[in-house]
């Protein structure tokens, strides 16, 4: 469940983000300080859920609801208890959390969300959650989420606490590990061929001895990973 948190108070955003960490299926892709930022963000990044504060300067939560096209599910968050009845006027509003949100109440909200998404899946099996597993990956660079298409990634190299992701056009340095990124990559396209390298094996130009060539990069193949690589290739 990919979500964003929209609230003008950093403290409120921090609490919701921390509560989301308890739920393994919940992924906070952005924390945004106002509804205008949220509208901009949603233009290029689909999400399943928005935690939306009502009382915000510039554009209120209600203004946002009235403005946004094809809204995902929304959980309203506010310190105003009296807004609850009005909130359910909109079918995409799943829940209404009064701040400060308790962990127990948050769990109930998550259960309600799970039921809602299950129902959607049953009624519309063609609906897919915005995981983008087969298409793209978002990386966090200087608080900016950058979308990388899987097909554009050539290889990923480990450098201590960092990994370097090389695409057709750029090289990105991200604070993460090969193990973590491996979990996010589709096996149909990516393979670890060395303890320091994962490659997009659809981009291989040739294989010679114990190395592969991807664009101009010569990548070593470890002895233990070689059999799996050979198995994946469509050999004549």
């Amino acid at each position, binding site marked *: 469940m990919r979500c964003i948190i929209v609230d*003008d*108070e*950093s*403290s*409120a955003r*921090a*609490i919701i983000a*921390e*509560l989301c960490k*308890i739920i393994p299926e919940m992924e906070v892709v952005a924390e945004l300080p106002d509804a205008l930022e949220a509208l901009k963000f949603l233009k290029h990044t689909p999400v399943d859920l928005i935690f939306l504060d009502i*009382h915000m300067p510039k554009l209120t939560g209600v203004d946002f609801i009235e403005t946004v096209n094809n809204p995902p599910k929304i959980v309203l968050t506010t*310190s*105003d208890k009296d807004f609850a009845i009005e909130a359910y006027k909109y079918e995409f509003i799943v829940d209404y959390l009064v*701040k*400060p949100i*308790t*962990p127990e109440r948050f769990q109930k909200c998550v259960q309600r969300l799970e039921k809602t998404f299950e129902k959607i899946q049953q009624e519309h099996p063609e609906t897919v959650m915005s995981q983008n597993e087969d298409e793209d990956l978002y990386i966090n660079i200087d608080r900016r989420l950058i979308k990388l298409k899987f097909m554009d990634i050539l290889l990923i190299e480990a450098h201590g606490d960092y990994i370097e992701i090389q695409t057709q056009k750029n090289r990105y340095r991200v604070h993460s590990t090969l193990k973590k990124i491996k979990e996010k990559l589709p096996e149909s396209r990516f393979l670890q061929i060395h303890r320091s390298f994962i490659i997009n094996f659809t981009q291989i130009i040739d294989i010679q001895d114990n190395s592969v060539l991807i664009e101009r990069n010569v990548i070593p193949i470890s002895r233990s990973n070689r059999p799996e690589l050979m198995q994946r290739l469509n050999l004549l």
Partner: protein
Amino acid sequence: MIEQPNLDYIKEISGGNADFEKKFLTIIQTEFPKEKQDYIETLEGNELEESAKIVHKIKHKLGILGLTEGYKLAVKYEEDLKYGNTNLKGEFLEILQSVEKFILKIA
């Protein structure tokens, strides 16, 4: 005796995550003094609708810091301000001062 702020809620949310607690307290220490200042300025300028908006934000922090009675008072005060009534300003200021003192103590 006036109730005292505490970190019970923060600790419940953090589940022992010291990094979160530290990060969160830094946020409160940054946000609260500014909100208090803005509140005082709008009140002095008789911009009571603006004051009500700031009280709305502050009341969330009162809840976070375990000030149950303070939170209730802020709810009432926010509504009063919308109607131009500032009768609770003295009590509200006392609460703000106790939060300020607490923030300085944990800094």
